[in-house]
């Protein structure tokens, strides 16, 4: 069944509409805006659910420009993968917005916060369903922008500004790399349509790969798209923006920076998997994913702040997903796709829950430092229960949810190594090594709730239900997935869940046939296989090392402080280096108008003269004065008036002589057969004179004496400008191009009488200039009116606002 157009439009459009209306809603509801926003998210969620349940799959498209070669359309595509991300964005959106109702109680800027969160949700839904590369890119960048606004929520804090700028620089720059990659792929395929039609890029994947290879562009396209995904999904070494992004209020961290936005990168990898599948693909993404998984897990162990720990852990788990999607090798590709698809879901459930718990801790205990926290279960029993389910899922301990997806990764790396041999054996080893650290920091997070409560920690309040409930819901979801594994071992599967994950796997499947329709199922292993052994090793090693957690952390912190080893050091040095280019700025940007005017006018003049010289434009020979005598006299007076303006002893004298110039120009228009212009000029000139006199009355007389050297310099500059204009006028008036646009109007104006008086008949006017203004170039006239309106508004603002004392 095809998805309904209106349902699709509502899913993506409704959050944006709600965001636009938020200022209004906020005025009516105040803090309860949170729940109204959650209701909007709920509508999107229900609609996504409706698509999923009614089996609506396929393309929805609105064509905008339908010319050959310019097929511009807003198109969306519904399949398993897009539904998964859509469920996450809207479902977690409901929980986060509800949670914000409690969390944001005493925070500033709530209106902006909710509007941006809603706009983000819409953008994320757009990314999920986009079927066109340009649509995808636009929504992708919108998520970056909303993330920027949300990270910089506390606009006054230096650390927020730093974090927001950092995330913007990295993710938007990554997006531009991705765009370049898109252009390479689209250039080869001849369309921007990614999915849904017979000519879509994915449908002709094979020929695109071959074509790109033939041009030597395959690896560049792959790497460019990979950089985009890596920047968004915080892959090493572009992970550095994510820990700083924790400056944002905790609901934002839970929503954007763990469950949804950072999933855009892995989504991209999943989406492009069928298109760009190759050995290079596997090498790039498996390496990137496993390196990130390990490095970020190690850094998470070194964290001292609970949100920092969760941030690194998020990067680490995204690495796991990317590694999963990266595996395409013989026999292991299905496991790879299953790792990616299933872990997106599992990670969103447990990580968002943990972030919400972190928010509760920070909110109620007043600190986020790991060393200051402990024994919280007495005061926060519900949060403790949530953490048990979520943190053990994160650690990959059976039977909690993260265990199953990690098993798929182990299986995939093992199968790959088994089939390919050699260096590929590093993969399972690295996967286990990285997982040990994952286990360690998960347990450390869990231990915040157990053990002794530090004396310094005061009384911890119980959080409001609006904050507890969302965390509980997520933990229940994670828990159910876990229980599904236990019952799965007994042969009772959660059919809807497994069927849904199968669809996600299908969407990222690389060969339509073998994998297609393969049924996904997961269960607690009942016999000893290699992956089970790998999990056992992970947990065993973790349990042995855990007592030395403190020493381990100190070592990591010491290593991290070595500049060369820290990616942040490179970022900061680069940004500092760019900042130093301000030296150039301060010499050019003096704050003096004359500097700008001088540079601008001289640059234009010199470039124009240079262009004439380079193209060897010849000056026309002097052929006598073609202008009639009255015109020469009028223009002569105009020049004298202009001279007088520059020499005017007072402002009033200057304005009067300026008027003479203006009236001379009006007479010039009369002589030049332009009656409309003459009329307008006379009218405007009179108005300007009155206006000048009104304003001058309020201004002091000022006789700017200038030094002789400055006068000389200005005279030379003016001379150069004058010469440029002189040459330009001569060259252009000597040229006689054919087919001038004016002929079009003149023919219809009855200039050769045989064409008839079309302008008169259809334009309703005999004056061709007027007909042009109101009919042919009506938009120009509209623009002109708008300019006058803007000027009038600005004048009112400049004068009236001052008088109301609204400055300083």
């Amino acid at each position, binding site marked *: 069944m095809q998805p309904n157009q209106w349902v699709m439009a509502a899913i993506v459009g409704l959050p944006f509409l709600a965001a636009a209306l938020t200022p209004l809603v906020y005025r009516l509801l105040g803090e309860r805006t949170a729940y109204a926003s959650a209701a909007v998210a709920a509508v999107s969620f229900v609609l996504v659910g409706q698509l999923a349940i009614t089996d609506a799959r396929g393309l929805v498209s609105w064509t905008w420009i339908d010319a050959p070669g310019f097929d511009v359309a807003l198109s969306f595509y519904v399949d398993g993968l897009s539904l998964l991300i859509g469920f996450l964005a809207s479902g977690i959106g409901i929980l986060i917005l509800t949670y914000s109702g409690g969390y944001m109680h005493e925070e500033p800027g709530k209106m902006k916060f909710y509007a941006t969160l809603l706009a983000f949700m819409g953008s994320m839904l757009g990314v999920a369903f986009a079927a066109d590369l340009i649509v995808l890119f636009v929504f992708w960048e919108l998520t970056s922008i909303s993330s920027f606004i949300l990270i910089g929520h506390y606009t006054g804090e230096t650390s927020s500004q730093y974090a927001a700028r950092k995330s913007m620089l990295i993710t938007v720059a990554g997006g531009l790399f991705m765009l370049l990659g898109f252009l390479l792929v689209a250039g080869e395929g001849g369309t921007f349509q990614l999915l849904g039609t017979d000519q879509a890029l994915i449908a002709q994947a094979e020929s695109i790969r071959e074509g790109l290879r033939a041009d030597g562009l395959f690896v560049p396209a792959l790497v460019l798209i990979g950089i985009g995904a890596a920047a968004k999904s915080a892959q090493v070494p572009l992970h550095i923006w994510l820990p700083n992004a924790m400056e944002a209020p905790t609901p934002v961290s839970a929503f954007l920076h763990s469950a949804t936005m950072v999933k855009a990168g892995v989504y991209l990898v999943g989406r492009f998997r069928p298109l760009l599948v190759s050995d290079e693909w596997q090498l790039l993404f498996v390496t990137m994913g496993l390196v990130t998984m390990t490095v970020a897990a190690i850094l998470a162990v070194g964290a001292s702040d609970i949100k920092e720990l969760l941030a690194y852990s998020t990067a680490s788990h995204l690495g796991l997903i990317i590694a999963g999607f990266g595996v395409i090798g013989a026999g292991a590709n299905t496991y790879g796709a299953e790792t990616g698809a299933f872990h997106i879901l599992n990670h969103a459930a447990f990580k968002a829950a943990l972030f919400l718990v972190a928010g509760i801790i920070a909110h109620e205990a007043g600190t986020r430092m790991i060393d200051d926290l402990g024994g919280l279960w007495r005061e926060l029993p519900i949060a403790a229960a949530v953490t048990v389910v979520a943190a053990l899922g994160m650690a990959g301990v059976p039977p909690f949810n993260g265990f199953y997806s990690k098993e798929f990764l182990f299986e995939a790396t093992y199968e790959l190594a088994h089939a390919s041999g050699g260096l590929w054996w590093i993969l399972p080893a690295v996967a286990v090594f990285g997982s040990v650290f994952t286990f360690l920091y998960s347990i450390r997070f869990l231990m915040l709730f157990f053990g002794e409560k530090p004396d310094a920690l005061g009384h911890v309040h119980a959080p409001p239900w609006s904050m507890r409930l969302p965390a509980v819901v997520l933990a229940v979801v994670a828990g159910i997935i876990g229980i599904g594994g236990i019952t799965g071992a007994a042969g009772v599967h959660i059919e809807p869940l497994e069927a849904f994950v199968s669809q996600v796997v299908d969407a990222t499947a690389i060969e339509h046939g073998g994998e297609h329709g393969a049924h996904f199922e997961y269960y607690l292993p009942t016999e000893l296989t290699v992956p089970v052994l790998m999990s056992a090793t992970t947990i065993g090693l973790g349990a042995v090392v855990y007592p030395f957690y403190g020493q381990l952390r100190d070592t990591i912190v010491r290593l991290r402080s070595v500049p060369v080893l820290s990616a942040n050091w490179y970022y900061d040095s680069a940004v500092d280096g760019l900042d130093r280019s301000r030296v150039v700025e301060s010499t050019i940007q003096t704050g003096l108008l004359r500097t700008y005017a001088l540079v601008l006018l001289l640059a234009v003049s010199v470039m124009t003269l240079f262009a004439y010289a380079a193209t060897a434009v010849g000056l026309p020979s002097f052929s006598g004065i073609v202008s009639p005598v009255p015109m020469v006299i009028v223009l002569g007076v105009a020049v004298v008036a202009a001279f007088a303006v520059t020499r005017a002893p007072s402002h009033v004298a200057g304005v009067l002589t*300026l008027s003479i110039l203006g009236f001379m120009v009006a007479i010039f228009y009369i002589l030049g057969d332009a009656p409309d212009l003459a009329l307008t000029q006379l009218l*405007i000139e009179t108005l300007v004179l009155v206006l000048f006199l009104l304003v001058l009355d309020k201004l*002091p007389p000022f006789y700017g004496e200038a030094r002789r050297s400055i006068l000389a310099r200005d005279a030379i500059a003016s001379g150069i400008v004058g010469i440029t*204009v002189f040459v330009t006028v001569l060259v252009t008036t000597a040229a006689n191009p054919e087919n001038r646009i004016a002929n079009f109007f003149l023919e219809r104006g009855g200039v050769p009488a045989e064409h008839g008086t079309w302008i008169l008949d259809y334009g309703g006017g005999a004056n061709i200039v007027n007909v042009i203004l109101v009919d042919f170039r009506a938009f120009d006239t509209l623009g002109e009116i708008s300019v006058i309106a803007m000027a009038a508004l600005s004048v009112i603002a400049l004068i009236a606002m001052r008088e109301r004392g609204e400055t300083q």
Partner: protein
Amino acid sequence: MMGSVLAAGGEAGAYVPAREPQFVLAVVLGLLFALGTFLVLRRDIVRVVWGITILSQAANVYLVTMGGLAGSVPFVGHGDHGATATTDPLVQALVLTAIVIGFGTTAFALVLTYRVYEEHGTIDLTEIGDTHE
């Protein structure tokens, strides 16, 4: 109906006067631009506004010059009386818009000058520039 008439506009025709090098206007415009530039470079904001006014007047004159000065007024029916060429109506339409917009910017610049004087107590651009350093 409209479409078919519009489509007939492709024929080449020369109803605008042939251009000749305008030496007088070249000299006049060169001088006006030079004087306008000189004023823009002054310290007194009012003089800067004058300079901008002169520059925009000169630009308008230049555009009208490009439309050909030797034709007849662009009115329907003028062709009947033996005139072979008409001044360019399109240029005139553009300049008309430009004159009005020029008025808007001049008015805005003047009020801005007034506001600057209120804020800074001076209309000397050098002083205003210095306070920001």
